[in-house]
């Protein structure tokens, strides 16, 4: 699968578009009550920034306003589910190999070795990086430009 131009991978986090990154960073800082310099693209949102569930809502809302986009609920996971049948996505809450492969494509900013066999569906959000939302914004902006 080819990546949308501008999408960051785990190895290219230093190549963010400053205009986009500044707004993404501000959204995280405002939503989480942090200083701007406390937010980095590689940070895990839950583990490093201590975000709680409602913070994700706030972050999404601020990004929507900052970029005039609409972030669908469950947008990241639904992207990961694309092309994988419901029954092939998880078994007893554990992601299948097909789902993990799709997830690695959908979340290239996450080191691939974090998305390994045994990962539970409920644990996926623990791997979200700030870059995950950056990439989501880049993707939605590209979709918007296409009309």
């Amino acid at each position, binding site marked *: 699968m080819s990546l949308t131009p501008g999408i960051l991978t785990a190895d290219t986090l230093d190549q963010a578009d400053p205009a986009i990154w500044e707004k993404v960073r501000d959204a995280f800082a*405002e*939503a*989480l*009550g942090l200083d701007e310099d406390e937010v980095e693209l590689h940070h895990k949102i839950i583990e490093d920034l*201590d*975000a*709680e*569930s*409602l913070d994700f*809502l*706030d972050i*999404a*809302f*601020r990004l*929507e*306003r900052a970029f005039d986009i*609409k972030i669908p*609920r469950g947008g990241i996971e639904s992207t990961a589910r694309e092309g994988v049948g419901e029954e092939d996505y998880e078994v007893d809450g554990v992601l299948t190999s097909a789902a993990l492969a799709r997830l690695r494509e959908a979340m290239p900013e996450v080191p691939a070795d974090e998305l390994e066999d045994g990962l539970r569906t409920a644990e996926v959000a623990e791997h979200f990086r700030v870059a995950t939302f950056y990439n989501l914004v880049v993707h939605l902006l590209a979709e918007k430009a296409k009309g």
Partner: protein
Amino acid sequence: MSPTRPRFAFLVHALSVPHQRVLGLRHFTPGLAFGRRDGTSPYDLGEVARVGLKNLVDGVVVDVPMTPGQMLEDQGRALARMERLVQSIQRSEPVHAIGLGSLCAVVAGRGSALADRVDVPITTGGAATAWSLLENTRAVLAVRPGPVAVLGSRSPVGRAVAALLSADGFRVVVDNKRAARGLPVEVADSPETAAASCRVVVGAGPTGGTLAPGALQPETVLVDVAIPATPAGPVGAGVRVLAGEAVSVPRTWSRGGWGRVYQVLAGYGPFQVYACLIEPLVMAAQGRKKPFALGRNLDPDDVVRFGEAALAYGFAPRLARGWFAARL
């Protein structure tokens, strides 16, 4: 209503599709009542009930009849509907303060985006929730002294409660290292570890289902404000889960017929309300312009100020199980 008395409004939303239908009946809007519209129309906003304190302050509960799913799916639309509702109130019967109930206090930057768009003070109910949770926890600790765990400690309410309990001199264990910054509290590495170490546990997170129920040891009392409840399933025998946000109302509380219906439909029951409802009441009665709580901002000193005022108006925290008072 007397035009001279202070007034407040409280914004709520439908909790379910059946709630939407009831609100449609209340508004006399057949399209909503009979399910031909889905609750997102700007024409289905309306009044739920009139509440207040006799001869002191008048209030109106108004609704955006969107379900929780609709509110979360499109926060921009929820914000637009809330803004329209506030403008409508201000055109017809201006109020001095507006409180936000349930997800109205969560979406769109926890009230901050709405506050940016309207010219009346907006408050989220956070100080009232923290006060009732604090007082109810103190009541439990008075008969079960010992360490207390605060779960959801990263939330504004959780951090304020942790700060005030530690200021009381209690040994407080929190479940988040960032919440502990600057506070004399202990940090556990998970909610389960924090809960297992204490026999009094505070559920301060706004959303529940975050704690493995087995972490609560027998004889533990959980004072909870999360909806749904903090444990992600049924708790074990000997564990008591009490509502942390219930407040008894004074004899001067007025509510009318639809107010009684509202108290039942909102889950309060006939004898109590949730604290967040009275936060804008206190603001209006005091002529206070500064919100008690907005966005992530919740100053523990404002929790204390709010509590003093609420008590003076006759409201009192009430340990409850469901609709009824609980005995320890």
